[in-house]
């Protein structure tokens, strides 16, 4: 009570003492609340899966793991899955990089069309490509008959192709934003000094992109091995872990073995997650900082240009054709069998309801996810409390968690009282929030690293309370991160199948599940029409969001400190 500052505040009454306490500790309270949320909705379900995998009717047992490693079937399943993930990640990164390079560095003429073609399928469920491939390249497919092919679509190669096509857009999106934020000046000065395009690529562009490439690779690998739609439709007799897990849970109701399968699925993801963190140590923020700038097209040597153009046109062409097939299928009774033009696929009422539900769930998830993401980022960067790095790890681990794990985890953790959440919108939304949290958190962290803490300190010194500082200084700066988290959660939540498929209940069907059901059931027209409707509606939503963001960029730019 000796200092003048304190006595001043005592005079102001006890109300301000509470305020003081809050100012000093609010960040810790916030951290505690967030930690509880993470523990409850992210860690607890994972632990529930782990426990289920080692708890038999008579207590602890490793019997289920023994069964897994003793059966050649599961072994094959595991090998296939990892192989699929590896091939898929490599191919997606190469193609995604070529596409991103062409749309940010290539000739103006190509940029827009390539970008649109690469981004549109992002909103379509990944297994859509399986449908197109059956119509085109099935044993009785249009192309197969035309060219008299003898290629077996049902099997490993079919799954790899459809899964690769499905994840090119994601690779493209991530790599494009990395390339956009690379300052083109470096490359241009190298070019001006006479470096060849290949040298620039090898010594400047790719090394600078390394963190982005790694991150994209990790994300694609994890999503590939967990998303089971393509494998379930085209796998034939080739086993993969994700669809096996699905059948184990939904078909055989064997939660023990299902848990084992998903734990096995986690292991490689965690390993890659740690490798990725290790490699990025210290490099974490090199990709951010530069403002997105469109680079002027340069003359690209044929040595680079020819393969790049070839790869991009092939990939974009394949995506375009698959999408065109879906569009056509949505207007035909049965494309390829009875080619009669109908509109009935679009009038299917249940699919409208499912789309509406999906959008609701995704919006709720996106709002909650973006808010929690921004708050988590703030706590991680500015907080000084025990367990900070643990919170960081936990909130970023969403990158490395296969969807099936959190799906089963939520089913195990929240299907019985006292924590009964199943059977409604909230369990679906929360599931999406915590699975896709990482992107918002990461964006928030990098934004916060751009502003020095002095600005906040200055604000506090001038007498602003913690909350005022937070709302007037921190939030405006972090707004782009909020939007990034919002859009990513929204878009991924709307098409992702791997977790929500375990959690939907009667009366609350989601579009992704509905499309999958229609697809495996053979209602290709309805599956296609639902997809097209979904794509159009989501594009509308994203356009509105972009409009809002643009408006607010102007608003927040005024108060933006020169970092």
């Amino acid at each position, binding site marked *: 009570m000796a200092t003048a500052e304190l006595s001043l505040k005592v005079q102001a009454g006890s109300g301000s003492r509470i305020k003081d306490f809050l100012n000093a500790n609010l960040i810790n309270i916030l951290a505690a609340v967030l930690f509880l949320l993470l523990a409850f909705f992210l860690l607890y379900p994972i632990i529930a899966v782990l426990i289920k995998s080692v708890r038999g009717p008579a207590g602890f047992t490793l019997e289920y793991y023994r069964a897994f490693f003793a059966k050649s079937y599961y072994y094959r399943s595991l090998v296939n899955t990892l192989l699929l993930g590896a091939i898929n990640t490599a191919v997606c990164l190469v193609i995604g990089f070529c596409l991103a390079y062409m749309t940010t560095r290539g000739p103006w003429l190509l940029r827009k069309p390539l970008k649109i073609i690469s981004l549109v399928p992002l909103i379509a469920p990944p297994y859509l490509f399986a449908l197109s491939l059956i119509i085109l390249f099935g044993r009785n497919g249009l192309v197969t008959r035309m060219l008299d092919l003898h290629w077996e679509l049902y099997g490993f190669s079919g799954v790899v192709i459809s899964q690769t096509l499905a994840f090119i857009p994601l690779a493209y999106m991530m790599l494009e934003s990395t390339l956009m934020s690379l300052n083109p000046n470096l490359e241009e000065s190298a070019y001006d000094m006479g470096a060849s395009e290949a040298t620039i690529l090898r010594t400047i562009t790719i090394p600078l992109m390394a963190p982005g490439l790694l991150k994209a690779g990790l994300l694609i690998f994890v999503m590939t091995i967990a998303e089971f739609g393509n494998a379930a439709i085209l796998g034939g007799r080739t086993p993969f872990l994700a669809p096996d897990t699905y059948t184990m849970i939904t078909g055989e109701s064997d939660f023990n073995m299902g848990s084992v399968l998903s734990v096995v699925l986690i292991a490689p993801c965690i390993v890659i997650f740690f490798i990725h963190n290790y490699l990025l140590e210290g490099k974490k923020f090199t990709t951010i900082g530069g403002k997105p700038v469109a680079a002027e097209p340069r003359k690209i040597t044929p040595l680079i240009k020819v393969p790049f153009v070839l790869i991009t046109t092939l990939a974009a062409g394949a995506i375009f054709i698959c999408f065109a097939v879906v569009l056509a299928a949505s207007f035909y009774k*049965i494309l390829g069998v009875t080619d009669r033009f109908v509109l009935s696929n679009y009038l299917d009422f249940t699919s409208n309801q499912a789309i509406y539900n999906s959008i609701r769930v995704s919006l709720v998830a996106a709002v909650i996810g973006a808010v929690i993401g921004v708050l988590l980022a703030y706590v991680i960067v500015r907080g000084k409390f025990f367990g900070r790095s643990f919170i960081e790890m936990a909130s970023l681990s969403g990158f490395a968690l296969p969807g099936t794990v959190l799906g089963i985890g939520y089913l195990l953790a929240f299907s019985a009282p006292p924590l009964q959440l199943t059977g409604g919108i909230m369990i679906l939304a929360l599931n999406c929030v915590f699975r896709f949290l990482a992107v918002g958190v990461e964006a928030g962290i990098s934004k916060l690293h751009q502003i020095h803490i002095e600005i906040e300190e200055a604000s506090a010194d001038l007498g602003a309370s913690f909350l005022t500082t937070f709302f007037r200084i921190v939030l405006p700066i972090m707004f782009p991160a909020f939007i990034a988290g919002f859009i990513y959660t929204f878009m991924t939540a709307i098409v992702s199948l791997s977790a929500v498929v375990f959690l939907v209940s009667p*009366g609350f069907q989601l579009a992704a599940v509905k499309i999958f059901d229609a697809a495996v059931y*053979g209602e290709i027209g309805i599956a296609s029409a639902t997809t097209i409707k979904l794509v159009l509606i989501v594009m509308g939503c994203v356009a509105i969001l972009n409009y809002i963001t643009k408006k607010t960029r102007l608003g927040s730019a005024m108060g933006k400190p020169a970092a």
Partner: protein
Amino acid sequence: MKGKCVAVVVAAIFCVALAGSAAAQEINAYMGTSPDNNAKIAKFIKDKTGITVNQTFQSFGEIEARVKAEAPNFNADMIIGCGSSTGYLAKKNGWAVPYASPAWKGVADVFMDPQGNWYNIGNFSFLLVGNKDRLAKAGRTMPKSWKELLDPKWKGEIVMPSPLSSGTANMMRYSFLALYGDAEGWKFIEALDKNIHHYTRSGNAPTDLVGRGEFILGLTSDENVKKRLDDGYPLIWSVPAEGTGYDGTFALILKGTKKLDAAKKIVDLLGTPEFSALMAEIGYMTPRPAANALYGKTLPKYINLDLGKAADDKAKNNDIWKAKLRTDFK
């Protein structure tokens, strides 16, 4: 200012998204017939009783798995359309609410439980389907008996559902086991496996795959064959000489429902001749006699079955199936 506007917009979106749609009388049901037929049944119920049925499409196997996982706190009020094994299981474990519906008086034993734990809204069978065009092109004819499917010439050209996820496939399995006896039955299933290209998730999927001409022959549920023929698929169907098996499509009220009255009302409705007529039109053999869309007046030859035993053996047979067919792939 603009930040605030955005906050308001976001908050508004959030509220709208969260606000559920409140409706009059609703009931949640797991429904295991095809999406089309689920919708038809739900519409019939809505028209006759005013009750809205919220339904998810799931296969019989998935419904059983879900009910087992959720017991005794079910997320649905009732099941309209599950396999007989689920019905017997629910009866055994006390998951069903017994209800002696007056509307079901006088139907045959196959169609209702004496205590009213379950009601069978329609029997269905499995068929052999073939693609006319592909058969003609290959210069082959439809096999006359199940045994003919073992001919190596069909290798890789037959699809059937997997008993791990499909109730229809479970029906095929217990029918073959009943037809040939356990030992010979398993030998038949193993020999057939050599010619099966792959096992599908849903019991109806082979109809579509064969209809598209992806495969020449399929063992499939008879549920959707009529509709696929009407849609214009070049399909041909037959019941091989040995006959076919059947399974019920059970309806039952789940314990713990807060909408017992509505559920009872629906069960009553399911026992009416009008509802039987609807089911027969779809292609089911119904509790109240009605002309069948697919078979007409002469029903196919049936293999002698004990559905209760089939339900008891299901888990054991799944294990055998996996042990026999999954050890060495390809």
